[in-house]
Protein backbone atom coordinates (compact mmCIF):
# COMPACT_ATOMS: atom_id res chain seq x y z
CA UNK A 1 0.00 0.00 0.00
CA UNK A 2 3.06 2.16 0.49
CA UNK A 3 3.47 2.55 -3.28
CA UNK A 4 -0.24 3.01 -3.97
CA UNK A 5 -0.40 6.79 -3.71
CA UNK A 6 2.90 7.31 -5.52
CA UNK A 7 2.57 8.81 -9.03
CA UNK A 8 6.19 7.82 -9.82
CA UNK A 9 5.85 4.10 -9.13
CA UNK A 10 3.90 2.61 -12.07
CA UNK A 11 2.88 -1.05 -11.79
CA UNK A 12 4.81 -3.55 -13.91
CA UNK A 13 3.33 -4.19 -17.40
CA UNK A 14 1.72 -7.48 -16.45
CA UNK A 15 -0.08 -5.97 -13.47
CA UNK A 16 -1.08 -2.93 -15.51
CA UNK A 17 -2.66 -5.14 -18.19
CA UNK A 18 -4.42 -7.15 -15.52
CA UNK A 19 -5.93 -4.01 -13.97
CA UNK A 20 -7.01 -2.65 -17.37
CA UNK A 21 -8.62 -5.89 -18.56
CA UNK A 22 -10.16 -6.34 -15.12
CA UNK A 23 -11.95 -3.00 -15.14
CA UNK A 24 -13.30 -3.56 -18.68
CA UNK A 25 -14.54 -7.00 -17.64
CA UNK A 26 -16.13 -5.49 -14.53
CA UNK A 27 -18.10 -3.03 -16.65
CA UNK A 28 -19.16 -5.81 -19.04
CA UNK A 29 -20.25 -7.88 -16.06
CA UNK A 30 -22.25 -5.03 -14.57
CA UNK A 31 -23.79 -4.33 -17.97
CA UNK A 32 -24.73 -8.02 -18.39
CA UNK A 33 -26.20 -8.13 -14.88
CA UNK A 34 -28.34 -5.07 -15.48
CA UNK A 35 -29.49 -6.40 -18.86
CA UNK A 36 -30.26 -9.88 -17.52
CA UNK A 37 -32.12 -8.61 -14.47
CA UNK A 38 -34.63 -6.81 -16.64
CA UNK A 39 -34.34 -3.63 -14.56
CA UNK A 40 -33.80 -1.60 -17.73
CA UNK A 41 -35.90 -2.45 -20.74
CA UNK A 42 -34.15 -3.96 -23.77
CA UNK A 43 -35.23 -1.03 -25.88
CA UNK A 44 -33.16 1.29 -23.70
CA UNK A 45 -30.13 -0.85 -23.02
CA UNK A 46 -29.30 -3.80 -25.28
CA UNK A 47 -27.55 -6.71 -23.61
CA UNK A 48 -23.85 -7.30 -24.43
CA UNK A 49 -24.69 -10.56 -26.21
CA UNK A 50 -27.24 -8.67 -28.33
CA UNK A 51 -24.52 -6.22 -29.30
CA UNK A 52 -22.24 -9.14 -30.20
CA UNK A 53 -24.86 -10.74 -32.39
CA UNK A 54 -25.63 -7.36 -33.98
CA UNK A 55 -21.92 -7.05 -34.69
CA UNK A 56 -21.92 -10.51 -36.28
CA UNK A 57 -24.97 -9.56 -38.35
CA UNK A 58 -23.33 -6.35 -39.54
CA UNK A 59 -20.03 -8.10 -40.21
CA UNK A 60 -21.54 -10.80 -42.43
CA UNK A 61 -25.10 -11.12 -43.64
CA UNK A 62 -26.72 -12.20 -46.85
CA UNK A 63 -23.43 -12.60 -48.69
CA UNK A 64 -21.86 -9.26 -47.88
CA UNK A 65 -20.40 -7.31 -44.98
CA UNK A 66 -22.16 -4.03 -44.22
CA UNK A 67 -19.53 -3.26 -41.65
CA UNK A 68 -16.61 -3.65 -44.05
CA UNK A 69 -18.27 -1.49 -46.71
CA UNK A 70 -19.10 1.18 -44.13
CA UNK A 71 -15.58 1.06 -42.68
CA UNK A 72 -14.01 1.44 -46.12
CA UNK A 73 -16.19 4.45 -46.90
CA UNK A 74 -15.58 6.17 -43.58
CA UNK A 75 -11.88 5.27 -43.63
CA UNK A 76 -11.58 6.60 -47.18
CA UNK A 77 -13.18 9.93 -46.25
CA UNK A 78 -10.96 10.16 -43.20
CA UNK A 79 -7.85 9.40 -45.25
CA UNK A 80 -8.61 12.01 -47.90
CA UNK A 81 -9.40 14.65 -45.26
CA UNK A 82 -6.30 13.60 -43.29
CA UNK A 83 -4.03 13.99 -46.32
CA UNK A 84 -5.48 17.46 -46.92
CA UNK A 85 -4.92 18.33 -43.25
CA UNK A 86 -1.27 17.24 -43.58
CA UNK A 87 -0.62 18.90 -46.94
CA UNK A 88 -2.31 22.20 -46.05
CA UNK A 89 -2.18 22.38 -42.25
CA UNK A 90 1.48 21.51 -41.62
CA UNK A 91 2.96 24.17 -43.96
CA UNK A 92 0.63 26.82 -42.48
CA UNK A 93 1.63 25.83 -38.94
CA UNK A 94 5.34 25.86 -39.83
CA UNK A 95 5.10 29.27 -41.47
CA UNK A 96 3.19 30.64 -38.46
CA UNK A 97 5.76 29.25 -36.04
CA UNK A 98 8.70 30.45 -38.09
CA UNK A 99 7.56 34.02 -38.66
CA UNK A 100 6.01 35.73 -35.61
CA UNK A 101 4.39 38.38 -37.80
CA UNK A 102 2.56 35.77 -39.87
CA UNK A 103 1.51 34.19 -36.58
CA UNK A 104 0.23 37.54 -35.32
CA UNK A 105 -1.80 37.92 -38.49
CA UNK A 106 -3.19 34.39 -38.74
CA UNK A 107 -3.65 33.26 -35.15
CA UNK A 108 -6.85 35.34 -34.63
CA UNK A 109 -8.26 33.47 -37.63
CA UNK A 110 -7.19 30.00 -36.46
CA UNK A 111 -6.95 29.83 -32.67
CA UNK A 112 -10.59 30.72 -31.80
CA UNK A 113 -11.83 27.80 -33.90
CA UNK A 114 -10.36 25.37 -31.41
CA UNK A 115 -13.22 26.26 -29.10
CA UNK A 116 -15.75 27.05 -31.83
CA UNK A 117 -18.76 24.73 -32.27
CA UNK A 118 -17.45 23.07 -35.44
CA UNK A 119 -20.64 21.00 -35.60
CA UNK A 120 -22.60 24.21 -36.11
CA UNK A 121 -20.64 24.72 -39.32
CA UNK A 122 -22.28 21.70 -40.90
CA UNK A 123 -25.42 23.48 -42.18
CA UNK A 124 -23.25 26.24 -43.59
CA UNK A 125 -21.06 23.72 -45.40
CA UNK A 126 -24.18 22.03 -46.75
CA UNK A 127 -25.36 25.42 -48.00
CA UNK A 128 -22.03 26.09 -49.69
CA UNK A 129 -21.00 22.69 -50.93
CA UNK A 130 -24.18 20.69 -51.19
CA UNK A 131 -24.69 17.28 -49.64
CA UNK A 132 -22.06 15.30 -51.52
CA UNK A 133 -18.64 13.94 -50.60
CA UNK A 134 -16.84 17.30 -50.72
CA UNK A 135 -19.03 18.62 -47.89
CA UNK A 136 -18.19 15.63 -45.67
CA UNK A 137 -14.49 15.83 -46.38
CA UNK A 138 -14.47 19.60 -45.87
CA UNK A 139 -16.17 19.16 -42.51
CA UNK A 140 -13.63 16.57 -41.32
CA UNK A 141 -10.82 18.75 -42.67
CA UNK A 142 -11.95 21.88 -40.83
CA UNK A 143 -12.62 19.98 -37.62
CA UNK A 144 -9.08 18.57 -37.56
CA UNK A 145 -7.03 21.34 -39.12
CA UNK A 146 -8.00 23.88 -36.47
CA UNK A 147 -6.37 21.61 -33.91
CA UNK A 148 -3.37 20.73 -36.03
CA UNK A 149 -2.24 24.20 -37.09
CA UNK A 150 -1.75 25.63 -33.56
CA UNK A 151 -0.02 22.42 -32.48
CA UNK A 152 2.43 22.58 -35.40
CA UNK A 153 3.06 26.24 -34.69
CA UNK A 154 3.78 25.47 -31.03
CA UNK A 155 6.06 22.59 -32.06
CA UNK A 156 8.16 24.99 -34.14
CA UNK A 157 8.32 27.58 -31.38
CA UNK A 158 9.32 24.96 -28.82
CA UNK A 159 12.60 24.19 -30.61
CA UNK A 160 15.47 25.59 -28.50
CA UNK A 161 16.83 28.80 -29.95
CA UNK A 162 20.37 27.44 -29.88
CA UNK A 163 19.63 25.38 -33.01
CA UNK A 164 18.57 28.48 -34.88
CA UNK A 165 21.52 30.57 -33.67
CA UNK A 166 23.91 27.76 -34.52
CA UNK A 167 22.70 27.48 -38.09
CA UNK A 168 22.57 31.26 -38.50
CA UNK A 169 26.16 31.51 -37.34
CA UNK A 170 27.21 28.93 -39.93
CA UNK A 171 25.87 31.22 -42.62
CA UNK A 172 22.50 29.61 -43.21
CA UNK A 173 19.92 31.82 -44.84
CA UNK A 174 16.85 32.44 -42.65
CA UNK A 175 14.90 29.87 -44.62
CA UNK A 176 17.76 27.35 -44.35
CA UNK A 177 17.72 27.87 -40.58
CA UNK A 178 14.04 26.94 -40.50
CA UNK A 179 14.34 24.04 -42.93
CA UNK A 180 17.67 22.58 -41.80
CA UNK A 181 17.73 23.34 -38.08
CA UNK A 182 14.27 24.06 -36.70
CA UNK A 183 11.81 21.87 -38.63
CA UNK A 184 13.78 18.62 -38.23
CA UNK A 185 13.81 19.22 -34.48
CA UNK A 186 10.06 19.85 -34.45
CA UNK A 187 9.11 16.76 -36.49
CA UNK A 188 8.22 14.44 -33.57
CA UNK A 189 5.83 17.02 -32.14
CA UNK A 190 4.42 17.69 -35.61
CA UNK A 191 3.78 13.95 -35.84
CA UNK A 192 1.93 14.19 -32.51
CA UNK A 193 -0.25 16.90 -34.05
CA UNK A 194 -1.11 14.60 -36.98
CA UNK A 195 -2.01 11.83 -34.53
CA UNK A 196 -4.35 14.19 -32.65
CA UNK A 197 -5.87 15.33 -35.96
CA UNK A 198 -6.77 11.75 -36.88
CA UNK A 199 -8.28 11.12 -33.44
CA UNK A 200 -10.40 14.25 -33.81
CA UNK A 201 -11.57 13.13 -37.25
CA UNK A 202 -12.74 9.75 -35.92
CA UNK A 203 -14.85 11.57 -33.32
CA UNK A 204 -16.38 13.76 -36.07
CA UNK A 205 -17.03 10.98 -38.59
CA UNK A 206 -20.60 10.33 -37.43
CA UNK A 207 -21.40 14.03 -37.65
CA UNK A 208 -19.83 14.31 -41.09
CA UNK A 209 -22.00 11.42 -42.28
CA UNK A 210 -25.13 12.77 -40.63
CA UNK A 211 -26.40 14.46 -43.77
CA UNK A 212 -27.26 12.28 -46.76
CA UNK A 213 -24.74 9.55 -46.33
CA UNK A 214 -25.55 6.39 -48.21
CA UNK A 215 -22.49 4.60 -46.91
CA UNK A 216 -20.26 4.85 -43.89
CA UNK A 217 -20.15 4.03 -40.20
CA UNK A 218 -21.98 7.22 -39.29
CA UNK A 219 -24.72 6.36 -41.72
CA UNK A 220 -24.85 2.81 -40.35
CA UNK A 221 -25.38 4.12 -36.83
CA UNK A 222 -27.85 6.71 -38.05
CA UNK A 223 -29.83 4.10 -39.92
CA UNK A 224 -29.90 1.70 -36.97
CA UNK A 225 -31.08 4.49 -34.70
CA UNK A 226 -33.96 5.23 -37.03
CA UNK A 227 -35.20 1.65 -36.59
CA UNK A 228 -34.40 1.69 -32.85
CA UNK A 229 -31.87 -1.13 -33.38
CA UNK A 230 -29.88 -0.06 -30.33
CA UNK A 231 -27.74 -3.19 -30.39
CA UNK A 232 -26.48 -2.12 -33.83
CA UNK A 233 -25.93 1.46 -32.62
CA UNK A 234 -23.77 0.12 -29.80
CA UNK A 235 -21.88 -2.16 -32.17
CA UNK A 236 -21.21 0.73 -34.56
CA UNK A 237 -19.92 2.97 -31.77
CA UNK A 238 -17.61 0.23 -30.50
CA UNK A 239 -16.27 -0.33 -34.03
CA UNK A 240 -15.48 3.38 -34.39
CA UNK A 241 -13.67 3.40 -31.04
CA UNK A 242 -11.70 0.30 -32.08
CA UNK A 243 -10.76 1.82 -35.43
CA UNK A 244 -9.68 5.07 -33.77
CA UNK A 245 -7.53 3.10 -31.34
CA UNK A 246 -6.03 1.08 -34.19
CA UNK A 247 -5.21 4.25 -36.13
CA UNK A 248 -3.62 5.72 -33.02
CA UNK A 249 -1.48 2.64 -32.36
CA UNK A 250 -0.42 2.46 -36.01
CA UNK A 251 0.61 6.11 -36.09
CA UNK A 252 2.50 5.89 -32.79
CA UNK A 253 4.38 2.91 -34.21
CA UNK A 254 5.11 4.85 -37.41
CA UNK A 255 6.29 7.87 -35.44
CA UNK A 256 8.72 5.74 -33.42
CA UNK A 257 10.06 4.27 -36.66
CA UNK A 258 10.50 7.69 -38.27
CA UNK A 259 11.94 9.53 -35.26
CA UNK A 260 13.71 6.93 -33.14
CA UNK A 261 15.96 9.61 -31.69
CA UNK A 262 13.11 11.36 -29.91
CA UNK A 263 12.72 8.72 -27.22
CA UNK A 264 16.49 8.56 -26.73
CA UNK A 265 16.75 12.28 -26.03
Amino acid at each position, binding site marked *: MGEFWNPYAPPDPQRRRLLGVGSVLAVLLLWSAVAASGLVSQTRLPAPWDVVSAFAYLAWNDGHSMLLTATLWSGGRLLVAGLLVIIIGIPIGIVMGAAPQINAALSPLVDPFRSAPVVALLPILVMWMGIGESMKIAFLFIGAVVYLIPMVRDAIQAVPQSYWIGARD*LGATPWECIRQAVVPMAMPRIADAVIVAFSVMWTYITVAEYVNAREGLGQLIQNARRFSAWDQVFAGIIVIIALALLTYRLMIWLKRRLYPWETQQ
Partner: protein
Amino acid sequence: MTAPMTAAGRPVAAAAAKSVAVVLKDIVQEYPAHSGAVTRVIDRVTLSFEQPGINMLLGPSGCGKSTLLHMLGGVRPMGVKTPTSGSVMIDGVECHGAHDDSVMVFQRYANRPDLSVFDNVAFPFRLKLWKSREPEAEWRQRVTDLLKAVGLADKAGLRPAQLSGGQNQRVALARALVLRPKILLMDEPFGALDAQTREEMQQLLIDLYQSWPCLVVFVTHDVTEALLLGDRVIVLSGQPARVADDFLIGEPRPRAAAWQRSAAAQGLEERILAQLHASPGKGQVRVSI
Protein backbone atom coordinates in the same frame (compact mmCIF):
# COMPACT_ATOMS: atom_id res chain seq x y z
CA MET B 1 42.08 26.41 -49.93
CA THR B 2 43.39 22.93 -49.44
CA ALA B 3 45.74 22.71 -46.50
CA PRO B 4 48.55 20.16 -46.46
CA MET B 5 48.00 17.39 -43.96
CA THR B 6 50.31 15.64 -41.55
CA ALA B 7 50.43 11.88 -41.36
CA ALA B 8 47.87 12.11 -38.57
CA GLY B 9 45.53 13.77 -40.98
CA ARG B 10 45.64 17.17 -39.33
CA PRO B 11 46.46 20.35 -41.14
CA VAL B 12 50.10 21.23 -40.45
CA ALA B 13 50.85 24.41 -38.57
CA ALA B 14 52.13 26.07 -41.73
CA ALA B 15 48.58 26.02 -43.00
CA ALA B 16 47.34 28.10 -40.09
CA ALA B 17 44.52 30.54 -40.58
CA LYS B 18 45.58 33.85 -42.04
CA SER B 19 45.89 36.33 -39.24
CA VAL B 20 42.87 38.49 -38.85
CA ALA B 21 42.40 41.85 -37.17
CA VAL B 22 39.30 42.15 -35.03
CA VAL B 23 38.56 45.46 -33.36
CA LEU B 24 35.73 46.23 -30.98
CA LYS B 25 35.40 49.95 -30.56
CA ASP B 26 33.36 51.75 -27.87
CA ILE B 27 30.79 48.97 -27.74
CA VAL B 28 27.64 49.86 -25.83
CA GLN B 29 24.72 47.47 -25.59
CA GLU B 30 21.39 48.36 -24.10
CA TYR B 31 18.22 46.32 -23.88
CA PRO B 32 14.77 47.74 -23.31
CA ALA B 33 13.68 47.00 -19.75
CA HIS B 34 10.35 47.41 -17.99
CA SER B 35 8.49 50.72 -18.04
CA GLY B 36 10.39 52.17 -20.97
CA ALA B 37 13.76 52.20 -19.19
CA VAL B 38 16.84 50.65 -20.75
CA THR B 39 19.30 48.27 -19.16
CA ARG B 40 22.91 48.82 -20.15
CA VAL B 41 24.62 45.44 -20.43
CA ILE B 42 27.90 46.48 -22.01
CA ASP B 43 29.50 49.84 -21.34
CA ARG B 44 32.10 51.29 -23.71
CA VAL B 45 34.17 48.16 -24.31
CA THR B 46 37.15 48.63 -26.62
CA LEU B 47 39.29 45.61 -27.48
CA SER B 48 41.47 44.55 -30.35
CA PHE B 49 42.72 41.14 -31.37
CA GLU B 50 45.38 40.77 -33.99
CA GLN B 51 47.48 37.66 -33.62
CA PRO B 52 46.30 34.10 -33.60
CA GLY B 53 45.96 33.13 -29.97
CA ILE B 54 43.57 32.01 -27.31
CA ASN B 55 41.85 35.02 -25.78
CA MET B 56 39.82 34.39 -22.67
CA LEU B 57 36.86 36.68 -21.98
CA LEU B 58 36.39 36.17 -18.26
CA GLY B 59 33.58 37.67 -16.26
CA PRO B 60 30.82 36.87 -13.80
CA SER B 61 27.80 34.98 -15.10
CA GLY B 62 25.32 37.20 -16.88
CA CYS B 63 27.74 40.07 -17.40
CA GLY B 64 27.30 40.37 -21.15
CA LYS B 65 30.26 38.28 -22.33
CA SER B 66 28.07 36.16 -24.56
CA THR B 67 26.50 39.26 -26.04
CA LEU B 68 29.97 40.49 -26.99
CA LEU B 69 30.73 37.13 -28.56
CA HIS B 70 27.48 37.15 -30.54
CA MET B 71 28.50 40.57 -31.88
CA LEU B 72 31.81 39.16 -33.07
CA GLY B 73 29.93 36.37 -34.81
CA GLY B 74 27.39 38.76 -36.26
CA VAL B 75 24.51 36.79 -34.74
CA ARG B 76 21.48 38.66 -33.41
CA PRO B 77 19.42 36.27 -31.40
CA MET B 78 17.09 38.76 -29.76
CA GLY B 79 16.11 40.88 -32.72
CA VAL B 80 17.54 43.94 -30.94
CA LYS B 81 20.05 46.19 -32.66
CA THR B 82 23.54 45.08 -31.64
CA PRO B 83 25.64 46.89 -30.70
CA THR B 84 23.55 49.86 -29.57
CA SER B 85 26.54 52.03 -30.42
CA GLY B 86 30.15 51.40 -31.30
CA SER B 87 31.52 49.21 -34.05
CA VAL B 88 32.86 45.73 -34.72
CA MET B 89 35.55 45.78 -37.41
CA ILE B 90 36.93 42.60 -38.96
CA ASP B 91 39.97 43.21 -41.17
CA GLY B 92 38.94 46.84 -41.43
CA VAL B 93 35.40 46.08 -42.56
CA GLU B 94 32.52 46.92 -40.27
CA CYS B 95 30.59 43.80 -39.34
CA HIS B 96 26.83 44.18 -39.67
CA GLY B 97 25.62 40.62 -39.65
CA ALA B 98 26.59 36.99 -39.95
CA HIS B 99 29.91 36.62 -41.77
CA ASP B 100 32.08 33.75 -42.96
CA ASP B 101 35.22 34.49 -40.94
CA SER B 102 34.03 33.15 -37.63
CA VAL B 103 32.34 30.04 -36.30
CA MET B 104 30.79 29.71 -32.88
CA VAL B 105 30.72 26.81 -30.42
CA PHE B 106 27.98 26.93 -27.79
CA GLN B 107 27.55 25.45 -24.35
CA ARG B 108 24.35 23.82 -25.52
CA TYR B 109 25.78 21.94 -28.47
CA ALA B 110 23.34 22.28 -31.33
CA ASN B 111 23.76 18.82 -32.82
CA ARG B 112 20.88 17.59 -34.92
CA PRO B 113 19.55 14.47 -33.21
CA ASP B 114 18.30 12.91 -36.44
CA LEU B 115 21.70 13.03 -38.18
CA SER B 116 24.73 10.82 -37.67
CA VAL B 117 27.91 12.18 -36.12
CA PHE B 118 29.47 12.38 -39.60
CA ASP B 119 26.51 14.29 -41.02
CA ASN B 120 26.50 16.63 -38.03
CA VAL B 121 30.11 17.57 -38.67
CA ALA B 122 29.34 17.90 -42.38
CA PHE B 123 26.25 20.01 -41.59
CA PRO B 124 27.67 23.33 -42.91
CA PHE B 125 28.03 21.75 -46.36
CA ARG B 126 24.27 21.27 -46.50
CA LEU B 127 24.03 25.05 -46.67
CA LYS B 128 24.20 26.93 -49.94
CA LEU B 129 27.02 29.15 -48.68
CA TRP B 130 29.51 26.31 -48.17
CA LYS B 131 28.21 23.71 -50.59
CA SER B 132 29.29 25.79 -53.54
CA ARG B 133 32.74 26.48 -52.12
CA GLU B 134 34.18 23.04 -51.58
CA PRO B 135 33.90 19.93 -53.75
CA GLU B 136 32.25 17.06 -51.98
CA ALA B 137 35.34 14.86 -51.96
CA GLU B 138 37.29 17.66 -50.26
CA TRP B 139 34.80 18.27 -47.44
CA ARG B 140 34.23 14.58 -46.89
CA GLN B 141 37.98 14.19 -46.40
CA ARG B 142 37.99 17.13 -43.99
CA VAL B 143 35.15 15.68 -41.95
CA THR B 144 36.93 12.33 -41.75
CA ASP B 145 40.18 14.01 -40.68
CA LEU B 146 38.47 16.08 -38.02
CA LEU B 147 36.56 13.14 -36.60
CA LYS B 148 39.94 11.49 -36.21
CA ALA B 149 41.38 14.62 -34.60
CA VAL B 150 38.61 14.86 -32.01
CA GLY B 151 38.73 11.11 -31.33
CA LEU B 152 35.37 10.16 -32.81
CA ALA B 153 36.55 8.29 -35.92
CA ASP B 154 34.85 5.10 -34.73
CA LYS B 155 31.62 6.92 -33.83
CA ALA B 156 30.92 8.47 -37.24
CA GLY B 157 27.74 6.47 -37.77
CA LEU B 158 26.18 7.00 -34.33
CA ARG B 159 23.50 9.52 -33.46
CA PRO B 160 24.06 12.32 -30.91
CA ALA B 161 21.79 10.65 -28.34
CA GLN B 162 24.20 7.71 -28.32
CA LEU B 163 27.10 9.97 -27.28
CA SER B 164 28.07 11.49 -23.95
CA GLY B 165 27.96 15.23 -23.32
CA GLY B 166 31.71 15.56 -23.90
CA GLN B 167 31.52 13.58 -27.15
CA ASN B 168 28.67 15.78 -28.35
CA GLN B 169 30.80 18.83 -27.67
CA ARG B 170 33.59 17.18 -29.70
CA VAL B 171 31.14 16.95 -32.59
CA ALA B 172 30.40 20.67 -32.22
CA LEU B 173 34.12 21.50 -32.19
CA ALA B 174 34.74 19.38 -35.28
CA ARG B 175 31.84 21.06 -37.08
CA ALA B 176 33.28 24.47 -36.29
CA LEU B 177 36.79 23.58 -37.44
CA VAL B 178 35.69 21.80 -40.60
CA LEU B 179 35.17 25.26 -42.07
CA ARG B 180 38.79 26.26 -41.19
CA PRO B 181 37.64 29.52 -39.63
CA LYS B 182 39.90 32.51 -39.05
CA ILE B 183 38.04 33.17 -35.82
CA LEU B 184 36.75 30.53 -33.42
CA LEU B 185 34.22 31.89 -30.92
CA MET B 186 33.53 29.72 -27.90
CA ASP B 187 30.64 30.53 -25.59
CA GLU B 188 31.31 28.71 -22.29
CA PRO B 189 31.67 25.53 -24.35
CA PHE B 190 32.68 23.29 -21.46
CA GLY B 191 30.52 24.90 -18.79
CA ALA B 192 27.95 22.09 -18.66
CA LEU B 193 30.48 19.23 -18.48
CA ASP B 194 31.70 17.41 -15.40
CA ALA B 195 35.17 18.27 -14.11
CA GLN B 196 37.00 15.32 -15.65
CA THR B 197 35.40 15.69 -19.08
CA ARG B 198 36.09 19.43 -18.96
CA GLU B 199 39.79 18.76 -18.45
CA GLU B 200 39.83 16.37 -21.41
CA MET B 201 38.09 18.93 -23.58
CA GLN B 202 40.48 21.69 -22.52
CA GLN B 203 43.37 19.45 -23.54
CA LEU B 204 41.65 18.67 -26.84
CA LEU B 205 41.23 22.38 -27.53
CA ILE B 206 44.95 22.93 -26.92
CA ASP B 207 45.78 20.09 -29.36
CA LEU B 208 43.38 21.35 -32.00
CA TYR B 209 44.66 24.88 -31.63
CA GLN B 210 48.21 23.67 -32.21
CA SER B 211 47.20 22.09 -35.50
CA TRP B 212 44.96 25.00 -36.51
CA PRO B 213 46.15 28.20 -34.80
CA CYS B 214 43.44 30.78 -35.33
CA LEU B 215 42.02 33.64 -33.34
CA VAL B 216 40.12 32.03 -30.49
CA VAL B 217 37.84 34.14 -28.32
CA PHE B 218 36.72 31.97 -25.43
CA VAL B 219 34.05 33.13 -22.99
CA THR B 220 34.18 31.65 -19.50
CA HIS B 221 33.26 32.43 -15.92
CA ASP B 222 35.84 29.91 -14.71
CA VAL B 223 39.00 31.63 -13.47
CA THR B 224 40.95 28.36 -13.49
CA GLU B 225 39.98 27.67 -17.09
CA ALA B 226 41.03 31.16 -18.13
CA LEU B 227 44.48 30.70 -16.59
CA LEU B 228 44.85 27.20 -18.03
CA LEU B 229 44.04 28.06 -21.65
CA GLY B 230 44.59 31.76 -22.28
CA ASP B 231 47.42 33.51 -24.06
CA ARG B 232 45.54 36.57 -22.97
CA VAL B 233 42.94 37.08 -20.29
CA ILE B 234 40.44 39.90 -20.52
CA VAL B 235 38.52 40.41 -17.30
CA LEU B 236 35.08 41.95 -17.60
CA SER B 237 33.30 43.51 -14.65
CA GLY B 238 29.74 42.68 -13.65
CA GLN B 239 26.82 44.31 -15.42
CA PRO B 240 27.27 46.64 -17.15
CA ALA B 241 30.39 44.94 -18.48
CA ARG B 242 33.53 47.03 -18.70
CA VAL B 243 37.09 45.86 -19.27
CA ALA B 244 38.44 45.55 -15.75
CA ASP B 245 41.76 43.95 -16.61
CA ASP B 246 43.62 42.68 -19.65
CA PHE B 247 46.91 40.78 -19.47
CA LEU B 248 49.03 38.19 -21.28
CA ILE B 249 50.25 34.84 -19.96
CA GLY B 250 53.57 33.72 -21.41
CA GLU B 251 53.60 30.23 -19.96
CA PRO B 252 53.50 27.66 -22.80
CA ARG B 253 50.63 25.21 -23.00
CA PRO B 254 49.84 22.61 -21.80
CA ARG B 255 50.27 24.22 -18.42
CA ALA B 256 51.34 21.68 -15.86
CA ALA B 257 49.64 21.31 -12.52
CA ALA B 258 52.90 22.55 -10.97
CA TRP B 259 52.54 25.85 -12.82
CA GLN B 260 48.92 26.15 -11.77
CA ARG B 261 50.06 25.92 -8.14
CA SER B 262 53.01 28.29 -8.67
CA ALA B 263 53.20 31.70 -7.08
CA ALA B 264 52.87 33.32 -10.51
CA ALA B 265 49.58 31.56 -11.26
CA GLN B 266 48.26 32.15 -7.75
CA GLY B 267 49.13 35.80 -8.12
CA LEU B 268 47.19 36.07 -11.38
CA GLU B 269 44.21 34.37 -9.81
CA GLU B 270 44.21 36.76 -6.88
CA ARG B 271 44.58 39.68 -9.26
CA ILE B 272 41.52 38.57 -11.23
CA LEU B 273 39.41 37.94 -8.15
CA ALA B 274 40.41 41.30 -6.69
CA GLN B 275 39.32 43.05 -9.91
CA LEU B 276 35.99 41.25 -9.91
CA HIS B 277 35.33 41.95 -6.25
CA ALA B 278 36.21 45.60 -6.69
CA SER B 279 33.72 46.06 -9.51
CA PRO B 280 30.06 46.50 -8.65
CA GLY B 281 27.38 44.23 -10.09
CA LYS B 282 26.04 40.78 -9.55
CA GLY B 283 26.98 37.39 -10.96
CA GLN B 284 29.45 34.73 -10.00
CA VAL B 285 32.75 33.30 -11.13
CA ARG B 286 34.07 29.83 -10.53
CA VAL B 287 37.47 28.70 -9.30
CA SER B 288 37.97 24.97 -9.74
CA ILE B 289 41.20 24.40 -7.79
